[in-house]
């Protein structure tokens, strides 16, 4: 059964054989897996996928077989299986290796290939993001998304437009005359009045910590984050400064490569990673702050991704060690308390924060520290929203089902705002809410903190 | 000596076989056995059963003879097997929490033996401590303690069964957790002697709680007491038993006595105090009486024995939360009994399982009474079954029992009955007719 080409294709998995061994097939991961829970097929469970990987390693299954491709593809990559694994199987790493085998074995669909190519090039990324902003700015994306007929044919376009619309900053809280009453009157959707997409010049606010005494921080600006969520980057920067960090500008950084890794394009992922390591390592900072969960998880795994890289390996590991999610830097006792923000918010835990980075409490602490902000618990908050990169487009039906469950959980809470720490999740949940004609607004937790600081006057006189 | 007794005495010793008038006290619903035998070992039981297979006799295991009238009468009784001479406690390991006894040992004897090591058996079948181990299991009926400890099937760890064709099967074991093979021991419990004769059993024992306390709560009428009992059963407390007791019309001299709810708590003293406080809060009243230690045990022993002397005992059931409805239904039974005889009709109900026992001292025996009672009870059974409940004629006068089966229909599950019997008793010598088909 084993033949040369299969062996070459399976090389990435071969290299991870030791990481497969600890799986004792106990099945604890099954109920944690959003695809297994909905499909009931063990091939769509973490244990089943690991078993398929093992079969590839054992030469019993061809990496270009339909079964391997389908079930590896269908994984959301949410890694909810990792915290429940009693044997600590490094599922995420193994999945990447499997994806690499799959990627090499077959032609990736045109759309996905194009997307990956775009994000590999800084120039292309900037141009396409500009185009996206123009479409978004015209203000018809949401309208079009809602008016397109439902059904399979238009789904990708409909959903794509809705995602684009969802990336718009709709959060604009206004100081209520009666600040004690939390209610719909306390905020309004700001619509096209959202901040423009341009990256704001670094500014120097006053902080209680002199001269950025808490350390030098470089912000990972990201690709999508910089293109469509610049306001989140800006908010992060302001909030970091307000908390006593010195934020330094680092040029030469780009896409983190997470999308490529997840798609199995390890070659491009490593290229991108190397570029970031070079740029960020040179900046001599204490921390690299990331506000996109997926990118944060990717940076934290650079050490592993580049473990065989003689030139950059060490620096990559060091970079991984200094990487922090924005919430890690701000939450906790040292965090600065801003002005009251009377509103009801619920928090969706992005997979790459809670499962991949193990950050469960920090984002909630960040929100809970905002006076008068009511944080409502979200049912199955740690279950994947179905975003998973472009899953909603590549696996429309299943992604839609997973997304719909998340939307109903959000609506159930009665919150006005849903906060989540990853751009993909913000767009996925936001798109779902838009198509559901819901008024619930999607934002990043740091945007709420930023608004609270703004009201407190921390940024005044700049 | 009749031919049956004659043949049996050739195989066993003369002293182990009884015939003639002495067999009359072993009659089952008017069916007098031709011989009563008193085997002393499993081997003898096996021999008797093999012989009966050859001869085509009807054999009925009859334990110690205290529960012969219960349930559905067998088609015929040629040979009655008594367990009287197999009454030893064969092993008792307090540290391992089990006791092993021959089938003829009395529950009371086991309780005495275990109480010396501050342990006890959570078995309280109707009939109390006078019942034998074998009969308790063969009948399988639970008492009030089911609420806290489960029914007899949950107390049984292992048993020796001599099958209808004389095989000696050692089933289960001595340990609580045991999944080595199919749990056919469960079939033995409640099999009424139709699969074989139980010759010995291994039972779970429990450590005795430092406090045995029963609280009696009063209620103005049966309906209110049923509602109170349900409320207690739904309390988030580990109660050993919640029993509703409605005295008969003539008890305590003419209707002066009120219904009671007896709640038994087997805990440490601190926990019992706390449970009492919470129960009183739930009831809105304090208990009318608090009994502790042997007094607490005694009142529940009386609950077990209260069927004695009844002409008719019915077991009605619905889901436990519907206990008040079930009590209400008993008003339809007014015409069945003679209110001036004995206590008339009294009720006792296990609030956790929703089983209500109706005990009638003397049935009204007017013209066509048996047919009338049959019609009334059949209708009631139908209506209860339609609601997912049941009516069991636990014991009754032979005239009525001949007309009305003890249990309701088995439905499709009944299709397995014959196969199970054939697996244990291929020649069908054992207690034929005792199980519903």
């Amino acid at each position, binding site marked *: 059964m084993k033949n040369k080409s299969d062996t070459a294709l399976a090389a990435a998995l071969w290299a991870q054989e030791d990481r497969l061994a600890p799986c004792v097939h106990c099945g*604890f991961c099954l109920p944690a897996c959003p695809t297994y829970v909905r499909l009931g097929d063990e091939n769509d469970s973490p244990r089943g996928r690991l078993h398929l990987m093992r079969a590839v390693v054992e030469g019993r299954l061809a990496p270009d077989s339909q079964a391997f491709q389908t079930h590896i593809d269908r994984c959301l990559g949410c890694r909810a299986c990792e915290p429940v694994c009693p044997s600590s199987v490094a599922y995420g790493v193994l999945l990447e290796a499997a994806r690499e085998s799959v990627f090499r074995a077959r032609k990736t669909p045109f759309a996905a290939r194009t997307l990956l190519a775009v994000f590999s090039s800084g120039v292309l990324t900037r141009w396409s993001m500009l185009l996206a902003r123009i479409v978004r700015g015209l203000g018809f994306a949401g309208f079009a998304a809602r008016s397109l007929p439902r059904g399979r044919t238009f789904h990708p376009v409909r959903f794509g437009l809705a995602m684009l619309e969802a990336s718009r900053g709709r959060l604009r809280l206004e100081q209520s005359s009666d600040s004690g009453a939390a209610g719909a009157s306390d905020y309004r959707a700001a619509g096209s009045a959202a901040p423009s997409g341009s990256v704001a010049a670094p500014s120097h606010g006053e902080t209680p910590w002199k001269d950025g005494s808490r350390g030098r921080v470089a912000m990972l600006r990201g690709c999508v984050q910089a293109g469509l969520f610049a306001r989140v980057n800006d908010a992060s920067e302001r909030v970091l400064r307000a908390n006593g960090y010195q934020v330094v500008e680092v040029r030469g950084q780009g896409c983190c490569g997470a999308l490529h890794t997840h798609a199995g394009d390890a070659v491009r992922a490593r290229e991108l990673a190397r570029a970031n390591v070079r740029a960020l390592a040179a900046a001599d900072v204490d921390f690299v702050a990331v506000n996109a969960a997926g990118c944060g998880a990717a940076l934290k795994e650079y050490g592993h991704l580049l473990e065989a890289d003689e030139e950059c390996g060490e620096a990559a590991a060091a970079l991984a060690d200094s990487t922090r999610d924005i919430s890690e830097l701000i939450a906790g006792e040292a965090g600065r308390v801003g002005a009251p923000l009377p509103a009801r918010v619920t928090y969706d835990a992005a997979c790459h924060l809670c499962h991949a980075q193990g950050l469960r409490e920090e984002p909630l602490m960040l929100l809970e520290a905002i006076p008068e902000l009511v944080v409502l618990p979200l049912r199955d908050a740690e279950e994947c929203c179905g975003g998973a990169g472009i899953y909603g487009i590549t696996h429309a039906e299943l992604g839609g089902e997973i997304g719909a469950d998340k939307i109903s959980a959000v609506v159930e809470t009665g919150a006005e705002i849903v906060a989540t720490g990853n751009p993909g999740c913000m767009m996925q949940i936001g798109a779902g809410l838009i198509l559901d004609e819901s008024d619930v607004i999607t934002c990043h937790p740091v945007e709420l903190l930023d608004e609270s600081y703004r009201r407190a006057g921390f940024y005044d006189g700049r | 000596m009749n031919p049956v007794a004659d043949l049996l005495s050739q195989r066993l010793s003369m002293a182990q076989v009884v015939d003639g008038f002495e067999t009359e006290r072993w009659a089952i619903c008017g069916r007098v056995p031709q011989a009563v035998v008193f085997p002393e070992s499993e081997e003898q039981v096996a021999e008797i059963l093999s012989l009966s297979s050859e001869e085509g006799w009807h054999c009925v295991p009859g334990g110690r003879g205290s529960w012969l009238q219960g349930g559905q009468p067998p088609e015929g009784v040629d040979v009655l097997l008594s367990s009287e001479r197999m009454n030893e406690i064969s092993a008792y390991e307090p540290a391992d929490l089990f006791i092993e006894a021959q089938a003829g040992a009395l529950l009371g004897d086991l309780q005495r033996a275990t109480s010396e090591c501050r342990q006890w058996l959570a078995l309280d079948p109707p009939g109390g401590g006078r019942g034998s181990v074998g009969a308790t299991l063969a009948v399988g009926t639970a008492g009030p303690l089911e609420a806290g400890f489960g029914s007899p099937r949950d107390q049984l760890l292992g048993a020796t069964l001599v099958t209808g064709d004389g095989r000696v099967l050692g089933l289960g074991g*001595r340990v609580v957790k045991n999944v080595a093979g199919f749990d056919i021991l469960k079939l033995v419990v409640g099999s009424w002697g139709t699969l074989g004769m139980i010759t010995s059993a291994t039972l779970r024992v429990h450590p005795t709680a430092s406090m045995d306390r029963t609280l009696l709560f009063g209620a103005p009428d049966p309906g209110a007491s049923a509602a109170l009992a349900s409320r207690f059963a739904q309390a988030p407390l580990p109660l050993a038993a919640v029993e509703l007791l409605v005295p008969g019309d003539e008890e305590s001299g003419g209707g002066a006595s009120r219904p009671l709810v007896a709640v038994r708590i087997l805990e440490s003293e*601190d*926990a019992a105090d706390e449970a009492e406080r919470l129960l009183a809060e739930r009831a809105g009243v304090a208990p009318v009486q608090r009994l502790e230690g042997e007094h607490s045990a005694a009142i529940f022993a009386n609950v077990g024995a209260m069927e004695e002397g009844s002409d008719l005992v019915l077991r009605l059931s619905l889901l436990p939360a519907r206990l008040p409805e079930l009590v209400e239904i008993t008003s339809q039974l007014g015409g069945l009994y003679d209110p001036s005889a004995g206590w008339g009709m009294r009720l006792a109900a296990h609030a956790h399982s929703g089983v209500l026992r109706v005990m009638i001292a003397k049935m009204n025996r007017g013209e066509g009474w048996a047919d009338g009672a049959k019609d009334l009870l059949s209708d009631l059974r139908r209506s209860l079954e339609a609601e997912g409940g049941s009516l069991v004629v636990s014991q009754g006068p032979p005239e009525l029992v001949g007309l009305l089966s003890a249990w309701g229909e088995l439905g499709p599950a009944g299709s397995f009955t014959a196969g199970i019997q054939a697996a244990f008793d291929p020649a069908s010598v054992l207690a034929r007719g005792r199980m519903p088909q």
Partner: protein
Amino acid sequence: MADEPPSILPDPLTKELRDRLCGVVGDAWVIVDADRLLAYESDGLTAYRRTPRAVVLPKSTDEVSHVLSILSQEGIPVVPRGAGTGLSGGALADGDAVVVGTARMTSMLSLDPDNRLARVQPGMINANLTKAAEPFGLYYAPDPSSQSACTLGGNVAENSGGPHCLKYGVTTRYVTGLTVVTYDGEIVELGGFGRERGGYDLLGVFVGSEGCFGIATEIEVRLLPKPEGVRTLLAIFDRLEDAGTAVTEIMAEGLLPAALEIIDGPTIRAVEASVFAAGYPTDAEAALVVEFDGIEAGLAGDVERAVAQCSRAGAREVRTADSAEERLALWSGRKKAFGAMGQIANDLMVQDGTVPRSKLTEVLGRISEIGARYDLTIANVFHAGDGNLHPNLLFDRSNEDEVARVNRASKEIMAVCVEAGGTITGEHGVGLDKRRYMSLVHGPDELDAMRRIKWVFDPLGRMNPGKVLPDGPDDGKEAP
């Protein structure tokens, strides 16, 4: 364990048959592609690999009934499967059998807090039932260690136990009714709460029948009120015997803990060396976890008495926990033991014998002697309160000699348990793996009686064939 060479792939189903099955459950839920069947070749016991002929995933009682009548018309054997977490190979399809899985039957059918009853589909996860009952102050008592993943249907099939069975009993005590589908597709109701039935306890014998009688498609269970309070203590001992003494003395005190668990020295060291390190001292030879639950007011006294007994038995240290987090910390070493061992050894054979409590120390001594004789590392984790031992034999499957030694040692361990008055399996079931040891504990007449009862439910012998009963002249054959 130590499997025979992988069997030759069974014949796929004919297209006509596949179409009929697809017609019942839908195309996506009939798996016939050989590659996709790989995921079903093992359950929680990976020593065996058996490829099923197909996997069918129905959604309801009716679908199960249709699927089974189609398969029985063709005489194709059926193997029920839940989450595949079993440790005895019970969910593996031997020969030409088709797996019928309950993974899509996960619904709560009804929850009746007043009567403390729930009716669920068999694919519901054990822990999800407790989660659903929680708002009503209720929970489902049997808690197998795999409760976060195992299904209630699997629990019914195996009559599962768990750490808290000591006080609360095993699955069979909590199952009050079942809807089952027999091999020929017939739907039968067994039991049902609120009703006293005459007739044999078919419900009781079905529970624990390991899928050999039929498939349970609806399960009615009794729930219990959540205990008002819980207290946990952890005692550390220098000698395993002393922990055993403490267990005996705690029981002799008349205390009935909700759980009494011991992990031995090798296990402690495995846990502490893993990412699950729980802060147990690595030079200790036993850690005893004792848990009490019930009415809050009574717990302090119970704990005090248990602590005194542990100290008297020679505990070097006793830690108590009051808060939920502290309790979790004390339990973590016990709960993560299995996974931790998975990290120190490539392969793991876990045994499941049960012995009378008073024989624990003696039997553990003999097990360690067996381990030494066969040069194997054996780490013990066990439910000390009910005498249920879980010796974990660590090995590497690529080492043939070691595999053979594990086999021989396993058999000896089981024989020791039986000799001590116990049995070969307390909660994992016989399945495929332990049927060859059945004759250690049952005579030919008892095995024959079991076989005859199987035939009552499954006269053709095609429900989960090749499981539970050892190979006899009639094994897996039709009833005469």
